[in-house]
């Protein structure tokens, strides 16, 4: 049994310690918001926050995150920045199929928590780990800027 602090609650997981967090979340705990896209740290679909930093759950063994604060898309509305990001995403109708969007929102929230006025270059750097096959990048950029402008005013 491994205990993990997920979205503010302690959860027991009966899986080997080398199981990637992604599959522990999805199959073990039924938190299917974090998505599988590549399994080898190439697409960002599985992005979660660990101690406030974005992390790719598909390559993070659960043994490595014991004692750390894990936040998934399911609880990102508890975070004021996360909530603003979700609102901007809805305002601009960012999603198409939506599959990559949990990962995009987790990445964007992490960016905006560290940097309230990201430049285009900052956005490129923070967001280019996340693939969107539907091509929502222009709206993702616009939504991030919308949050930044709101925070400023």
């Amino acid at each position: 049994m491994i205990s993990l602090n997920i979205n503010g609650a302690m959860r027991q997981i009966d899986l080997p310690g080398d199981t990637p967090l992604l599959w522990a979340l999805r199959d073990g705990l039924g938190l299917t918001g974090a998505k599988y896209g590549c399994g080898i740290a190439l697409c960002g679909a599985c992005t979660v926050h660990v101690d406030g930093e974005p992390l790719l759950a598909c390559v993070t063994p659960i043994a490595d995150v014991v004692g750390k604060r894990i936040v998934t898309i399911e609880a990102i509305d508890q975070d004021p920045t996360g909530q603003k990001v979700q609102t901007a995403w809805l305002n601009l109708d960012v999603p198409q199929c939506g599959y990559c969007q949990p990962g995009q929102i987790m990445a964007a929230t992490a960016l905006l928590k560290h940097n309230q006025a990201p430049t285009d270059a900052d956005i490129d750097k923070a967001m280019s780990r996340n693939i969107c096959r539907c091509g929502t990048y222009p709206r993702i950029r616009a939504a991030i800027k919308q949050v930044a402008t709101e925070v400023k005013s």
Partner: protein
Amino acid sequence: MNMPEMPTEIASATDENLSIINVSRRSFLKDMALTGFVLAAGFPSLLIAAESAQPKKYGADAMPHGWVDNPLVFVAIAEDGTVTIVCHRSEMGQGIRTSLPMVVADEMEANWLHVKVEQAPGDEVKYGNQDTDGSRSMRHYFMPMRRVGAAARQMLETAAAQHWQVPVSEVKAELHQVVHVKSGKTLSFGELAKAAAKLPVPDRDSLRLKQPAEFRYIGKGWLKIIDGQNIVSGKAQYGIDTRLPDMLYAVVARPPVLGGKVIKYDAKQALKVPGVVKVVELKSSPLPADFNPLGGVAVIARNTWAAIQGRKALNIDWDHGPHAVYDSDAYKAELEAAVRQPGKVVRNEGDVDAAFKTAQKQITAEYYAPHLAQAPMEPPAATARIVKGHCEVWTCTQAPQVSRERVAKWLKLPEDKVTVHVTLLGGGFGRKSKPDYVIEAALLSQAMHGQPVKVTWTREDDLHHAYFHTVSLERLEAGLDADGKPLTWLHRSAAPSIASTFGPDSKHQMPVELGMGVINVPFAIPNIRIENPEAEAHTRIGWFRSVSNIPRAFAVQSFVAELAAAAGRDHKDYLLDLLGADRKIDPGSLSDVWNHGESPQLYPVDTGRLRRVIDVVTRESGWGRALPAGRGLGLAAHYSFLTYVGVVVEVVVDEAGKLSIPRVDIAIDCGAQVNPERIRSQMEGACIMGVSLATLGEISFKNGAVQQDNFHAYQLTRMDDAPRDIRVHLLPSAEYDAPLGGVGEPAVPPIAPALCNAIFAATGQRIRQLPIKEQLRKD
């Protein structure tokens, strides 16, 4: 939004012929194979006309199971006023779960705030055709959904009039209630629900459709997408997210080469992996591949990760079969040889050879475009369970009814013992029209005595076993007169055909494929010959968003720019000259008997509309403006899926040869716009997908197997390399009674040529082979 008519055309041919020649679908397909399957696939209705003297059907009428416009099927009103509208097409990012119900809601005067959308299971007898591809959903269902809404509205109005005992002409539905105009009395939809449900459905002829000026939602584009909140909170359920009590998780090791099979395997190590429950062999099917599962060895486990680890531990000897010879480099050389010889003539006007003799200048170019994989972000996934002889499936599918039929066939169950629940799709792009993975789930559940099993495709599986976009070589030759105008045009197009996936390989393209930008170019050139040399298929050729239009638009629109350059003329002016005077062309006169399955009368090729998108996009993008060195504008325009798209791409190529795309302008004329907001998002997405395939997209084969394993090798455009500013220009049209064009696909094809033309303008370098990858690199 993805698929052209190919397999559904086959299906429709077989379906409609069933009653005529009274044979099973399977044996009919076999007969067709012997007597000219490929011809039949593209000409189903012609064949039918010949055999049955029925008038030829078009559009939704010609699709398997046609259309349904019964309000009782699509609308339910609860006494609390909640209006539930059924969406029977699959949502994969095009916004159909918003747009189709929005049409119903508008016509019935429902308040969108009180509308719930319910997803239909696969059942075409009940709902009409559900194949979500070919950019057809709105095109085929706008009018039926309007009628559904209007009928529901009239039933509510009649119920209110009866309640008040006033003539129905005195009442009017208005935003979720019915008003008695004279007295101002109102009854809410909820209050009327019971009484309205008891009334007969009004005749189609008695329906009063709204005037466009009365629309609340149609054409406005201000409704938010219905699944938005679920998506941003991680609650949206995709095929890969299905969870059932006692569910097991499977991954499958499939034959690396098409037509391969297991010789023997050793599961000992796999079974030692903690969590692995069972290892099951799945039989390979004989070719043609059709939608059959590929076979292989499945590992069933308590979670996905254990299944993946178990699969790694399998030891399998494969018989790779005859396609192990497939090698993309060698195949390219084969295609080159093929297009340098005469091929089967598929369109011929004037005397091309004679005109070449009188031409002042002859220009020849060859364009190569490789295989592509659809690579939706959500890979294929399906879950099945069998309880008391009833198989239930949950899956992300573009083809719910076909999935149902195939599962029934494989499990030897009657169709009514199979239910296919349609989840959201994390992208489809044509991949999820093919239910091989759905059948796998059903077979694995069967192997586990009905216990629920979810089969998940890893990204490696998705790239190795896609139904690949074809590979192609397009050779173009033109003879120019003294003014640089083309006198004569010869196009040879060689590409393995989608038909090879479903029948014997004739090595020739079907009319469906030829009608995607090869034969139906509407240029005013007196001598035109189009040839289709042979090209053999060695993998499963399928359809990918916009299909054969991709290589054809790339070749034709690049070649026109090359001719303009050779003639020393502005590309835009030259292109407009080639289109000639505005005219509506009968596609049949271009030897296009397919015309996207639509009536040639309703949907002629309208060069005036093509000219207008070129005018608008060049004006809006500032065509002709002075640019510094290393910057360039490129133009392309393409007609596909009954829609006209013009694109101008602006590029910067720096001294090291690094490409960036500051801006893209897209003008689209798809007829009247039902949900302009989702049309814009489709244009943006198509643009980025077009850039992705043009700059990076390539699937290649060696020894019959795909060489790309994951996104490091099959790269997709990311944010830093995506066009920075995409401006969409919707050509206004309020003619909601005129036939609509498609939206999901038609903006993909012109992106690659516009981009390559811009690169030429910026650098003088002409790209004739996709993807661009490192071709511009100077270091």
